[in-house]
């Protein structure tokens, strides 16, 4: 069975690509054959975060148009077994992403025995985001702890409940969970950001994880290695926990409280 997961947010720049890369890498690390697809036509980014930008020959649109077959388009990760990347196209023509074309690619990946297909959605609630979400079996909604991001996530949740193939077929809402990223407990305490509880209360969906605001994310994207591979970092650990929860494990949430108590706070901070 293949599970198609869309990573979406509504608002731009909240951490979808960072999350897609971490989630796909984490699943593959655990032995699940996974492909991560960049749906952000024209603004490709995922290949940079995955550190494979210098090996891109073909892209999603090439595969859809039949310029290349799926095997040619997929880039195999050099660090993690069972991990594949399908980059976005630099072409400006967003119309190249037809639903039929995307379906064909997804079917091809299923035939290759992929267990997970992670779809990194572009920002917005327009066609690009809807195309990335259309075939999804599950959604991960990435949100930052601020009002506009939460509002946009709420909006996208409403759209998901009617605009996926499952919804159109009357099979109901796809499950959606919340990944709260760039969380800064200090700023929450100062009242500059919404707290986890506030966001959970507004969005009323399950919490997959809380990723702290972290220098490690910037270092990771500069070095082209998904932050989850930086297993000593706070963000790396938080993504590792999120992957475990995604696979059904119960894990307490960490990094929710300010670190001013030093090591003690780290160890006992999580409620």
């Amino acid at each position, binding site marked *: 069975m293949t599970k198609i997961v869309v990573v979406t947010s509504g608002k731009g720049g909240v951490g979808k690509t960072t999350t897609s890369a971490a989630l796909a890498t984490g699943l593959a690390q655990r032995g699940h054959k996974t492909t991560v697809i960049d749906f952000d036509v024209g603004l490709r980014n995922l290949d940079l975060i995955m550190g494979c930008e210098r090996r891109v020959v073909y892209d999603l649109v090439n595969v859809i148009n039949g310029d290349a077959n799926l095997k040619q388009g997929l880039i195999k990760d050099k660090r993690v077994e069972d991990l594949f990347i399908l980059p976005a196209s630099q072409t400006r023509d967003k119309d190249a992403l037809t639903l039929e074309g995307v379906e064909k690619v997804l079917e091809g990946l299923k035939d290759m025995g992929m267990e997970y297909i992670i779809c990194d959605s572009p920002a917005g609630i327009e066609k690009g985001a809807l195309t990335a979400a259309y075939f999804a079996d599950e959604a991960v909604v990435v949100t930052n702890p601020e009002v506009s991001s939460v509002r946009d996530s*709420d*909006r996208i949740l409403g759209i998901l409940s009617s605009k996926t193939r499952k919804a159109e077929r009357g099979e109901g809402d796809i499950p959606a969970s919340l990944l709260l990223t760039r969380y800064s407990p200090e700023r929450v305490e100062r009242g500059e950001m919404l707290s986890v509880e506030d966001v959970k*209360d*507004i969005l009323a969906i399950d919490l997959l994880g809380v990723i702290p605001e972290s220098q490690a994310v910037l270092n990771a994207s500069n070095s082209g290695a998904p932050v989850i591979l930086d297993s000593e970092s706070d963000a790396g650990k938080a993504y590792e926990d999120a992957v475990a929860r995604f696979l059904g494990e119960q894990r307490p949430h960490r990094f929710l409280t300010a670190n001013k108590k030093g090591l003690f706070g780290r160890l006992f901070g999580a409620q």
Partner: protein
Amino acid sequence: MTVAFEEKAVLEFKGRMLMMTVLLLKDLDPNTLHRQVSQRLEDAAQWLRDAPVVVDLAQPEGADQVALMAAVDTLRGLGVNLVALARNEHLDSDTAAMLGLGSISLAGGRDVPRSAEPAPQAEQPADAGHTLVIDQPVRSGQQIYSRGDLIVLAPVSTGAELLAEGHIHVYNTLRGRALAGVRGDQSARIFCQKLDAELVSIAGIYRVAEDLPEQHRKQAVHITLDGDAMRFADLK
């Protein structure tokens, strides 16, 4: 009056759009139109005479611009409160602008049968009185309309809109807008477990977030209309 207040008033206008009447014209002949419309207006209740009207054409394909202008003049001359022209592939917003009208798409609008003598309570649309129950969150950008009462068992987000001809019950947090009695029923009420609304309205009388009584904010409340005044009471 602050700028913010004026902006909220625009939102209220959106709520009232549902109360517009569509006048479907099957013929544009000014004489026939004059005769039949004046007859209808004489019979109609005051609210119908005051209602904002959208003109829709039964045969927009062949509509002659001059005939259309004459028809619109005739209606205006009779005091019909024309506000817009129904837009379709044959009538665009330029045509409407030429007539001094706005342009509205009626696609997705709801047909509500309207009798000529509409005592508000006496009208019985097919599913009037039917209670709509929603158990999923109502998210920003979503709108729910009930011909009768509306019961929501999940949170209602900022940017979501609840509309009911009858009462509205929200057994959770109400952060969006709730408009009860949208067809004029002044006995409609709003009940909610936690009031954090952007706007509440009963039969067109409304309060925006800023004007909600402080002591009822984030509390369980029961809202009723007393003349033109909105009354808030604890639900406990």
